[in-house]
């Protein structure tokens, strides 16, 4: 769908569904994933369909992902951080017991 107009200058690495993705420092998670060819960001809880970013400005919530330690977040509003672990959003949050 998308490609980078310019080569990555300051690489940042993070995990998406266990796979390492290299992106540009300062990218939104959505930009980094789209550049890496990811289209399926979340599964809609109501009809189990695949969804991906629509608006890119925080309005539609179609870009929801699960960030380890933070929970459901909008990929178009959060920026990549070296070493972070991101998963596609399952639709229903799977809660974990707090230590």
């Amino acid at each position: 769908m998308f490609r980078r107009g310019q080569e990555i200058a300051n690489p940042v690495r993070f995990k998406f569904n266990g796979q390492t993705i290299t992106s540009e420092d300062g990218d939104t998670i959505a930009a980094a994933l789209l550049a890496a060819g990811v289209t399926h960001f979340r599964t809609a809880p109501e009809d189990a369909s695949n969804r991906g970013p629509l608006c890119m400005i925080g309005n539609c919530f179609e870009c929801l992902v699960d960030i380890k330690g933070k929970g459901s977040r909008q990929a178009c509003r959060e920026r990549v951080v070296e070493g972070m672990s991101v998963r596609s959003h399952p639709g229903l949050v799977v809660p974990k017991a707090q230590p």
Partner: protein
Amino acid sequence: MTHDVLVIGAGPGGLSVASGLARAGACVQVIDEQPYAGGQIFRASEKSARAGNEIRGWLGEEYSGGLDLIRSAKRQERIDWQFATSVWDIRCEDDHIELGLVHGETASITQARHVVLASGAMERPAPFKGWTLPGVMGIGAAQTLFKDAGLVPENGVVLAGSGPLLYLFANQLLSAGVRPGAILDFAAKWVSAQHLVPLTRVAWHSRTALLKGLKWRSRIARAGIPHLFGVDELEAVGKDEVQGVHYRKGGQSHQFETSLLLVHDGVIPNTHMTVAAGCDHNWLAQQQYWQPGLNDKGQTSQQGLWVVGDCAGIMGAEAAEIQGRIVARNIAGKLGLAIGKAEATQAQKDLAELKKLAALRQFIDLQYPPAKTFATPADDTVICRCEAVTAGEIREIAQLGCQGPNQARAFTRAGMGPCMGRGCGLSVSRLMAEVSGNDIEQVGHYSTRTPLKPVTLSQLASLNDT
């Protein structure tokens, strides 16, 4: 209260109102959820300037010009900048307005006697069959990726819808070396006879803008990109993501293969916050959107709450800047701050300039009306993406005497999902009007409740300790 005025949004409108107020001697705080100033039009302008990269060149002069506005605002010492901070709650009291903020993982509450909303616009949601497939996005969304991350669509991207942004974006893509597969234009190729009168009215003083539009179009033609006018229906097809687009034109169906379908049906004011604040709104029938009712000074029906820029009604970035100056003077007056002579002469010029822009906008609005097909989705089209509610379900409950969009939300869950009705609000009101035969003004709109932006329960609970 530590600030005289809080400004929400650091786009052209917010930057201008904040600069004006700071120059008049007021203490201002500007809050924006983005990490840098510029709003939608000049998004990431500072970032790409620092990198000194090619992207700025591809985006064009207008984009680069935004940097001056940002830099001049940043020189004002009386402005306190709060970036990466979103406003998720607003509550109007008799003598002040309270805002709930989140910055990073921390929530806080702030208040001031005056708040200016400069929170801009959003692309008009355009429901059609298949629009929930990954790979269907807004043109503005793709442009945001371009500005913010230098991402460009791959060759063969299809642009569909109507409005000048279609042409601007196609030009930006050509500059970046991307060849769109097609442009499916809902507008007619030439200005229709009935719009000639408003066109001649704006032709001379808006000649630069009009010429720019023509230049964009001729470049698309010269590049040999298929530009189809008078398209009237769309369908995205694919299994788990977009694989192609079907469209109708002159009663005939055609199709293109593509993995990315970018759609644009104009922009509408982002009224989420003004509705939540309890402001009165008017329905603008020609452009099919709600806008907050403002007095002649720019103040909403709520004491101390002001609106500038596209969230007051779509007028574009230049108008946002002018409105910002005007509202800054009006608030300065309320705060008892003196306004210099130069400012007073500028006030006259501003009003005249705003009039011209309004005339140009009237022409654009006539030439690029909201597409009918998105306003009258078929029964099986999903209109609430979050809760997967179809147009047919809304029609069904409207027939049962459901009074309006708020009861419809309760009955169907449309508008109850994460986007809180930003995506389906207009559709639901329109469908209910269609079935009941009432005007949309009578049917009304969703009410909006907190939170306006995401906040977690522990962030909320932390306010207990403050």
